């Protein structure tokens, strides 16, 4: 599988998925017109990765803004990594801008729905 590398736009996030290195990063703004359509290929990529995952997987989210329809799709993706966590090492970092309490709380809420412990970084 090739690297999935998307540049950020005014309303779409920057995406870097590298199955070879076990790195999954999404950042900036996620305000797509249709979140289900936008996240479908990303979720498919993760599903594909789960067939032959690395021993160590690093997931990093750092949103500037995220629409609730995107949050729902991100949750779906996180649940896939949560599944992987049963057998492999998965580190999930939830980064947020300094002082962005709303974004920290969104991460805390999602964490509750998993068996993982997110690493929260104020950057």
């Amino acid at each position: 599988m090739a690297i999935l590398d998307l540049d950020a736009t005014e309303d779409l996030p920057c995406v870097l998925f590298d199955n070879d290195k076990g790195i999954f990063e999404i950042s900036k703004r996620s305000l797509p017109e249709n979140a289900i359509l936008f996240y479908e290929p990303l979720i498919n990529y993760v599903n594909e990765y789960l067939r032959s995952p690395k021993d160590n997987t690093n997931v990093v989210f750092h949103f500037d803004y995220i629409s609730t329809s995107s949050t729902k799709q991100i949750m779906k993706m996180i649940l896939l990594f949560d599944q992987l966590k049963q057998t492999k090492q998965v580190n999930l970092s939830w980064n947020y801008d300094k002082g962005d309490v709303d974004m920290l709380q969104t991460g805390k809420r999602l964490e509750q729905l998993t068996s993982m412990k997110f690493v929260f970084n104020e950057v």
Partner: protein
Amino acid sequence: MQITNSGKYSSIAELFRVLNHYQLNYAYNGDFTNDLTERILALAETNMDVESESLKIKKKVYFIIVESLQNITRHQGSSKDSRLMDGFFSIHKFLGGYLVGSGNAIENDHIKPLSEKLDRVNSLSADELKEYQKEVLSAGGFSEKGGAGLGLIEMVRKSGNKLQYDFDKIDDKNSYFYFQSKITDAQPQENSEIEKHNHEVVKSVHRAVTENNLKIFFQGQFKHENVRSLLSMAEGSIYLTEKFGFKKTSVAIMIELLQNISYHAAGINNSDERPGLFMVADNNNVCSLITGNYVENSKIDALIKKIDFVNSLDNDAIEKLYLETIMLDNNEVKQGAGLGFIDIRIKSKNKIEVEMVPYTDDKTFIIIKANISY
């Protein structure tokens, strides 16, 4: 119907009705930075694209907007008094054309020379304007703050209409200068409010906007590209950028409110339309983000029930509802699933307010207001 512009309106619906009389498409009241004016221009441009305006009218309107915004930023004062500080800008769309308005404080000493300049430009015929333009160009005499009336000459030539202006005394030293330029493609309809209140459109709208503490007004199509420009414009206003946490919360709520319209709003003539309203108001440290859109009457009960329910919950209950809702599997095209209102309620820490205005037998105009204290 008699229009009075005195004082605060008791409801958003009433204020909207009044502003609608002036066929207001966009208004901004406050501090203008170069960054903000660029965002306003971008919004005006996408909006005209969404409205499928002809290239001819688009170019003219764009030019008039650029000139009007430049006049505001160039003459913007520096003072603590918001009556002196705040600039005003508006776009009105009516059948057959546009009206672009602006307002800014000026020193009383400047009233006479400015009026003379405007009257001179207005008194000239098309040929005389051309001559006068050449004259000014060759003389090269620039006024202190740039420009030598060249902008004004071009505005009359491009718009094909005389420039309209007015002054309102603030105090012994300053007055507020109102300026408007009409761009017509065809002869406007006689019954248009723009025609009836010809030279007072901007003044009346400015009064209604300031007395009701409005910062931003937009009414139009909430297509994705327009929503993107509108959001960018709102983010660029100084009002929001002053406090980081407040800005983050406001923009996040705005995103939900605006997406809500572009996903769910009903059209008037066809189902592809997404007509809607967006306003930002500020009253005593409470910022109100307001949207309005049409909803089919068959869906009203469910919508109101949802909002009432979200409003009725305490902190723990709403957090629980958030977690339940996010786990609901809904792979349908309409993707809201009610998470938006829950998110708005949590982030704003206030109840969501709703106003309903009956429209037709099968549609209602719904106004939603989220309040953020800061």
